[in-house]
């Protein structure tokens, strides 16, 4: 089996003909492939339908986010963070703001924190809607995708109503948020949440997740063991799918997450080994429900809190002292870490490094992809729920 031959840094382009065995074939999947969730390229060595080895190539969407950050001021970075994980922008900017606030030692008011929590959780629902919907589509079920997008649209409507944009919000600011919630926001959110709980969630479970074909396509496929998950720094639903009960919202609460009661779902391995594609998706599905729970609690809290100026703590000029901070937050796709270094002299960050959850998830891909079938490769990419904007940055 020549596929296991160590790859030297000399062959940079890809596998060659002498890397594969007599019955094997190199299949290049992507960057223009319907199911690679953007522009991911995967080189596969296949023996018929079986995948012997896989090698992901990333970078097709690289925009050098980190270089951008060094050239704009601290608030100017936020629009760029929105474009990292463009499916869940609220979570990204929240993570960045938390990091810079830690650097500046600002604590936003509880009112602002509650708004942030509502936004982040609504965004998580919207993001998981896309994740599960596209996952269904990867497996050939088109209908759940559009049912879920219908719900996502409602959430985006609320976002647009609040901050003026549907996808790239620039809503979370250092020390606050850009706009206060509009009149009638609480009622609209409650409607969304109740509709999600009563209609979308049961329908999703019956139509897609409970379907025997879906189960047999996902259960037992792409099993990520607990050790592999931790070693490769899989986070968020990918980690919890492997049975590690770790959620930053619970274990390192930020933005007042300690005030809400919610469960942290973990993969239970109902239909096969723990850590399979099914478990990862199951965790996402249950997480949507828990997020809806958090949203309704946060809405209660928001009604009780006194309205404060949401830009009260926003500094006129963000210029932190020399220092560095590594802050993590639980974005929709996992732990999003920002490592921000300030040199104390400039209004630009000296260095911003993003630890994106998709990047690390994708780095474990080749371990899981060995020995599965081509159709499972699609299922696997979808179950890691990667967004190439965040991998390539």
């Amino acid at each position, binding site marked *: 089996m020549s596929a296991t031959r160590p790859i030297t840094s000399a062959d940079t382009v890809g596998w060659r003909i002498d890397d594969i065995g007599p019955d094997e074939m190199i299949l290049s999947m992507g960057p223009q492939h319907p199911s690679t969730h953007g522009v991911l390229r995967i080189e596969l060595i296949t023996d018929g*339908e079986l995948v012997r080895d896989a090698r992901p190539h990333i970078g097709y969407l690289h925009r050098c986010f980190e270089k951008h950050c060094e050239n704009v001021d601290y608030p100017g970075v936020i629009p760029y963070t929105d474009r990292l994980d463009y499916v869940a922008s609220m979570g990204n900017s929240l993570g960045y703001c938390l990091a810079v606030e830690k650097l500046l030692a600002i604590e936003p008011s509880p009112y602002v924190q509650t708004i942030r929590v509502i936004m982040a959780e609504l965004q998580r629902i919207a993001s998981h809607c896309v994740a599960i919907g596209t996952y269904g589509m990867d*497996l*050939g079920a088109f209908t759940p995708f559009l049912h879920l997008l219908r719900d996502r649209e409602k959430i985006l409507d609320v976002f647009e109503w609040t901050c003026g944009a549907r996808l790239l919000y620039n809503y979370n600011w250092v020390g606050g948020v850009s706009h206060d919630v509009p009149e009638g926001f609480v009622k609209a959110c409650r409607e969304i949440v109740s509709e999600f709980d009563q209609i979308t969630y049961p329908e999703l479970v019956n139509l897609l997740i409970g*379907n025997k074909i879906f189960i*047999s*396509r996902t259960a037992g496929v792409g099993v990520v063991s607990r050790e592999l998950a931790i070693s490769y720094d899989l986070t968020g639903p990918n980690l919890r799918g492997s049975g590690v009960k770790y959620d930053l919202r619970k274990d390192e609460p930020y933005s007042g997450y300690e005030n809400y009661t919610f469960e942290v779902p973990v993969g239970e391995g109902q239909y096969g080994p723990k850590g399979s594609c099914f478990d990862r998706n199951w965790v996402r599905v249950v997480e949507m429900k828990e997020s809806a729970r958090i949203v309704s609690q946060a809405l209660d809290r928001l009604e009780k809190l006194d309205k404060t100026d949401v830009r009260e703590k926003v500094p006129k000029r963000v210029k932190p002292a020399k220092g560095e901070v590594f802050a993590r937050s639980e974005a929709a796709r996992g732990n999003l870490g920002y490592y921000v270094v300030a040199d104390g002299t400039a209004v630009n960050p000296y260095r911003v490094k993003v630890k994106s959850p998709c990047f690390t998830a994708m780095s474990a891909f080749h371990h899981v992809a060995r020995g599965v079938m081509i159709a499972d490769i699609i299922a696997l990419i979808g179950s890691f729920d990667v967004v190439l904007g965040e991998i390539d940055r």
Partner: protein
Amino acid sequence: MDALLRLFSLIPGWDQNVPAWASISLAGLLAAGLCLGFISLGPVGYVYVERKLAGFMQDRLGPMRVGPWGLLQTIADTIKLLFKEAIFPAAVNRPLFVVAPCLVVIGAFMGFAVLPFSPTWQGTDLDVGAFYVIAIGSLSTVGLIMAGWASNNKYALFGAMRSAAQIVSYEIPAVMSLIVVVMIAGSLSLQQIVAAQAGGLHNWFLWKFFPLNVIAFLVFFTATLAECNRTPFDIPEAESELVAGFHTEYSGFFFAMFFLAEYTEMFVASAMVSVLFLGGFAAPLPVLQTVAGFDIGPVWLIAKAWALVFVHMWLRWTLPRLRVDQLMHVAWKVLLPIALFLIVVIGGLLTAPATAGGFPWDPWFGWPLTALLCGYLMLTALRAWRWHARQVREAVA
């Protein structure tokens, strides 16, 4: 063809002046032309219906732009496809690349030769009609493999290999459950199979040996679904895995031919299912067989076939697709044992004198069950409508 011949003889002096071979040839050509028209225009309708259904199931509207409610959308698409450039990638095997879609269409088209639309409206009543359809149906496999090979594309090759494996595997449960029907009818001729089911809904083979034949029906229907490459068995095209499978490299008119073949095959398969299990051109009530003295058998057959095509579409927009090994699992380990079991059991029942004509309760199940199914569907539809109305009321309030 018989009907056409009879029409000819209505013309005064035809029989005297035109030799028999000429009128038979003319009738054959005319029949072929009719079928060709039917299969070319049919997909226009199916595609529209499918897109509308998909839209409605997904809370969308489907095509709405071209014509009222988008009625002319598929016609516009067809025109576009016909006038589009057929692109030949540099490395394709050109002769095979061109022949493949033709073969696929021919395979789909030839099934029409034996489909009985009424006692007289039939291309020809072959003695082995049932097997003919099955045999011809797998001719398209050759076309698919050719297309996949000639495209010189790894994805197309995968699609071709998958489709070969799939169609060959699903022939077997299809034929096995077909044998059940053949045993009951005592003939392979489609005319005689339909004739054995005449006299009302309770006489359909679906309700014979209740509930054994229902299972046979499901097996056969599933197998035809797989032979038409429809979801959940659409792995040869599997657009999320293999881009477009065997027709990845096709464009323009050649792509349209694959499309045509797929929908034609769907119709032929559904018509076969209705001939074998749902009485073919026999009406559910004998009274409905003729309207003003005219035999409306073709209408019944087409209606039944379309109902089954609707189920095909319904399934497609509901289910995910199976993986290739699970597909084989379903064929060989699920459908085939069931079909074999049914052959043994029903064969045994047929030889026993007490049950040679079916179970005593057979006539009593067809009507209530059909009514129950239709009633359930209507009720849920009504509930959904009323829910809609309530939503509108609340929105207004």
